[in-house]
């Protein structure tokens, strides 16, 4: 009996130890605050995306550092950073030296949160999100890959222009940072040598708040709270005085408004077409090509995701025709049969490695989508190369404009060719991932990824091989999953590279090389 109690006690102890080994899982990317590799003092002379020039939007000249108003602000910073609380310190660490990383993470997180497809009604029809009434189920938005790539393109494009404007004024006014104006001020982030008016941090917060609130209207309060904390953290950290923040905030808001205006008329409002238009696209494909794609869900979804996303206004490509791929092989043709045989062979003999690759790149419902995945890579590289916020915004902007152009180009091909998915034409074919609700040719993952890798490879030449390998793997992943034929992926990769090169050509002459 004693032995029994002993063994029960031992088991309980073992369970306890087992439990305490469980560590807290990371809920965000951890990175240390860093000193910027360069300051890009000439950043205010670069070519913006939408602004006519970095100085297009005016801000008031700052008060002189000798003025009583400035001295009072300085004293407030000194007091705040000298008596920083534990919570405030945590906030400073969270926003850190380059808050674009955090805001990008927040944008990705919201994409994941809102990336849910509407459930069918009891009668077999499907409801649709309504931007006019975002809180009614299905919530607006449905952050599918086209939605998410566009959201990230506007967010990063606006950051780039806004920070270019901020740099323009920083070096025009040359107001010293608080810690430079008063050496006794304690700082809680690396002192970066940037003139502090307007605050680049406040600019980032304002752009993020405005763009993301427009894209995720139900998150307005959450985003406002985040922006407030971010701006406050700049004071707590000893990095900015209040008037730096006010100026950065108003500049950020004004630039964001320019991008919001573009978004209102870029064609996205019509991308999710009504059923008659969707039906006519299918009929046109059947007439032109002799085939058409159909949604395979039960009940069938009558309209695919954003049939007219291919008509949304691009950033760097001249038009979709310039990068439209050749037609896919006809179903039943010899080339098609080879692709089908490969899919069947893979499905019958799926290896663990293939399954892992398919899942790693799945980026499906409830995730930040492939565009989000590439933003995560970009964020890692930005930290690795210690880019300053302006240069980080440039990296994000060209990559995300290329990704959105890739999406536009890919969606053009998808609904122009209206090609059936493998499971639609191979009897009994099953997949290991859910089949997306849009036509097969070309692969979105492949196109997004090749465009992103092309830009990242240009900006970070030492990472080019790695980025290309990621894109290659992302393209293959869809074949392993049974979602795409090899030609969907290969042609999509070529298409994505072509799209990405247009963005690279713009980057080459923007002054920031």
């Amino acid at each position, binding site marked *: 009996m004693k032995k029994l109690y002993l063994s029960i006690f031992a088991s309980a102890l073992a369970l306890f130890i087992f439990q305490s080994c469980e560590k807290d899982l990371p809920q965000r990317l951890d990175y240390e605050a860093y000193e910027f590799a360069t300051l890009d003092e000439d950043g205010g002379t670069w070519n913006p995306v939408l602004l006519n020039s970095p100085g297009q939007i005016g801000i008031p000249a700052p008060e002189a550092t000798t003025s009583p108003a400035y001295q009072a602000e300085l004293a407030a910073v000194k007091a705040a950073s000298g008596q920083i609380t534990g919570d405030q310190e945590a906030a400073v660490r969270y926003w850190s030296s380059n808050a674009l990383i955090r805001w990008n993470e927040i944008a990705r997180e919201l994409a994941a949160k809102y990336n849910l497809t509407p459930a069918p009604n009891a009668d077999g029809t499907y409801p649709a999100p309504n931007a006019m009434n975002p809180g009614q189920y299905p919530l607006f938005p449905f952050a599918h890959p086209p939605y998410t790539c566009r959201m990230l393109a506007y967010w990063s494009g606006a950051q780039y222009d806004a920070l270019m404007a901020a740099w323009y004024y920083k070096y025009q006014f040359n107001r010293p940072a608080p810690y430079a104006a008063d050496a006794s001020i304690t700082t809680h982030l690396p002192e970066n040598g940037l003139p502090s008016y307007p605050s680049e941090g406040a600019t980032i917060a304002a752009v993020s708040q405005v763009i993301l609130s427009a894209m995720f209207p139900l998150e307005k309060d959450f985003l406002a709270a985040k922006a407030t904390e971010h701006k406050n953290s700049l004071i707590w950290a000893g990095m900015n005085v209040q008037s730096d923040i006010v100026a950065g905030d108003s500049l950020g808001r004004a630039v964001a408004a320019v991008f919001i205006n573009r978004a209102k008329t870029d064609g996205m409002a019509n991308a999710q077409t009504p059923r008659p238009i969707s039906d006519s696209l299918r009929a046109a494909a059947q007439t032109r090509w002799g085939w058409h794609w159909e949604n395979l869900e039960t009940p069938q979804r009558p309209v695919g995701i954003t049939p007219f996303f291919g008509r949304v206004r691009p950033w760097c490509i001249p038009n979709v025709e310039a990068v439209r791929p050749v037609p896919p092989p006809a179903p039943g043709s010899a080339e098609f049969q080879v692709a089908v045989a490969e899919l069947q062979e893979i499905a019958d003999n799926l290896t663990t490695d293939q399954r892992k690759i398919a*899942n790693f790149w799945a980026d499906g419902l409830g*995730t930040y989508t492939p565009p989000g995945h590439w933003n995560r890579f970009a964020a890692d590289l930005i930290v690795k190369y210690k880019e300053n916020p302006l240069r980080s915004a440039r990296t994000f902007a060209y990559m995300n404009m290329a990704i959105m152009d890739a999406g536009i180009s890919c969606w053009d091909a998808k609904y122009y060719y209206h090609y059936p998915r493998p499971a639609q034409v191979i009897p009994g074919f099953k997949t290991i991932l859910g089949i997306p609700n849009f036509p097969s040719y070309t692969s979105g993952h492949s196109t997004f990824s090749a465009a992103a890798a092309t830009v990242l490879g240009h900006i970070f030449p030492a990472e080019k091989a790695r980025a290309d390998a990621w894109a290659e793997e992302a393209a293959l992943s869809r074949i392993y999953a049974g979602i795409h034929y090899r030609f969907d992926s290969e042609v999509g990769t070529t298409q994505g590279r072509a799209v990405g090169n247009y963005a690279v050509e713009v980057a080459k002459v923007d002054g920031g090389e």
Partner: protein
Amino acid sequence: MKRMSITSILLMAFGVMLLLPSKAQTPTDALMMETGQICLAAIYTHDTWDEYWEGTLKRNNGNIGTLTRQTVMPMVALGVIDRVNVIAALPWVKTQASGGQMTGVQGLQDWGFWIKGTAVDQEIGSGKLTLHAVAGVSGPASNYLPDYAPFNLGFGCLEGSLRGVLQYQTGSGIFVRGQGAFHLRGNSTIERDYYYTTQGFYTDEVDMPDAISYGAVAGIWLLNNSLKVEAMFDGLKSLGGFDIRRQDAGFPSNKMIFTRVGGGLQYYFPFVKGLGVVASGGYVLTGRNVGQSLALSGGITYQFGIW
């Protein structure tokens, strides 16, 4: 686009213990093998559902249709000494859906190993009161993917459990039994390094919620102690986890709760010493993030002495 549109789900692999029909020599009953006795068992379970709870919303899903989960479980129990038995099991599971485009999976699920001891064995009048304590561990026996609801073979995590089984049996063979367990679960590993539950996680590890399970059984031994008939009520409750969102896919760390009713039969053939058959069934009454499953089991047991 993982699981685009295939909605969601849930899973019904509660590890070995709860799938066990109520029969002899299991972690949930009050039977003990004598020293040197060994019992081999093989049990087949056919489990189906076509409705599930997405959070608290009960629904069907045309992209799943009917989900069928078949389990073949070989099991061995050994009487180390009269008061201490050890039990091991290794189920093989196959899942498939009648609807949708996603492929089912099959393979070894979780190995399980239990030590069962008699803490109390007390004659009370003509009846007998027993209390057994059972400590168990289980873990994945193959590289199945836990992040593949509702097809996943299991949760893909290590689990430790402690269970108490209290039974009173009258001299005439009528018995009542209650049991309860705490299941401590380690992390599960999936094949993507970002996932969203109620917030994002930048890791391929999933913190699996611990759980409690419980059950009550009433039954009787008939035909000179060769036939056991029993009725049962049992349940499971995750002590954490999150609800499946509307039209989302299920996830290993969903908050799973259910209650179930069922019954079982066990019969020892009088003409072949040690040979028995078992049959049982269970139907989920209430649930959350689980399927409303109907499970039917049948199997054979063979007991003999080895020393």
